[in-house]
């Protein structure tokens, strides 16, 4: 049984800390095909008024969706995921990268065992994903 399928409404699930480096952004740019230079080129990012190179919102969402899939114990159990991108994650040009804290809480358990999970993602204490909600079907 996974952490999610045992959980009741109101239960907090195991949190996770992830780091995002410039190398991660380059790999994600290539894998996703999103080559927007604000995600890898400091000069361009500054020119358009950003504080620096920022992570793709879809990369942060991907890390959050992977986290939820791991909690569920089965990537195909995540049947819906929605989020708002509330703040950018600025990724410094160093070997440490940016840290994002992920958290999850079961907010509803349907009669068929489908669970609604509220997901949080914070960077330097501020939320970077807003209203992030995952729907997880029960194990088969």
């Amino acid at each position: 049984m996974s952490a999610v399928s045992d959980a009741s409404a109101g239960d907090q699930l195991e949190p996770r800390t992830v780091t995002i480096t410039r190398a991660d952004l380059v790999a994600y740019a290539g894998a996703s095909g999103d080559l927007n230079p604000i995600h890898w080129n400091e000069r361009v990012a500054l020119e358009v008024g950003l504080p620096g190179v920022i992570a793709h919102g879809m990369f942060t969402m991907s890390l959050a969706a992977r986290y939820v899939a791991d909690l569920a114990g089965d990537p195909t159990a995540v049947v819906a995921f929605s989020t708002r991108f509330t703040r950018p994650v600025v990724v410094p040009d160093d070997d440490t990268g940016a840290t994002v804290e992920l958290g999850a809480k079961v907010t509803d358990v349907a009669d068929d065992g489908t669970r609604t999970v509220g997901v949080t993602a914070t960077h330097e204490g501020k939320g970077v994903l807003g209203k992030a909600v995952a729907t997880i079907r029960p194990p088969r």
Partner: protein
Amino acid sequence: MPLDASFAGRSWPAETYEVSLEKVREFAVAIGADDPVHHDRDAARAAGHPDVVAPTTFPVVFTWPATRRVVDDPALGLDFTRVVHRDQSIEVARPLYAGDVVTSTVVVDEIRELAGNDVITFRVDVTDADGAAVLTTRATLVGRAEPEGEQA
């Protein structure tokens, strides 16, 4: 500049994409998804799948280019250099696997103006080779208003 409201409700001809084992692996590596069902065909089959499983957010690989085709249509009037990705959702009807040949149909769900900014929501309906639903994504983009004095 307001967007062309006539784009709301329109859809565009479907685009086809073939999901490959290597692209699924590459995407899974890039997001750190190390579950063997994303990487190893035998492991995926042992878990009851026909082939390796695409991670939840993998469809952006083909839904974003399909959407971008509309975003970049000059008739829409959206300046991509001022666009912010505000919301994203995905609803899954069935898992996406390597070997799937899927088609993406882009629909403009809604166009509105919010405090001078253009807000546009794109829906992408993805179906498999049999025409059955695989997933639906929604992306809301905001075209930020130009600051005073920069109006053309």
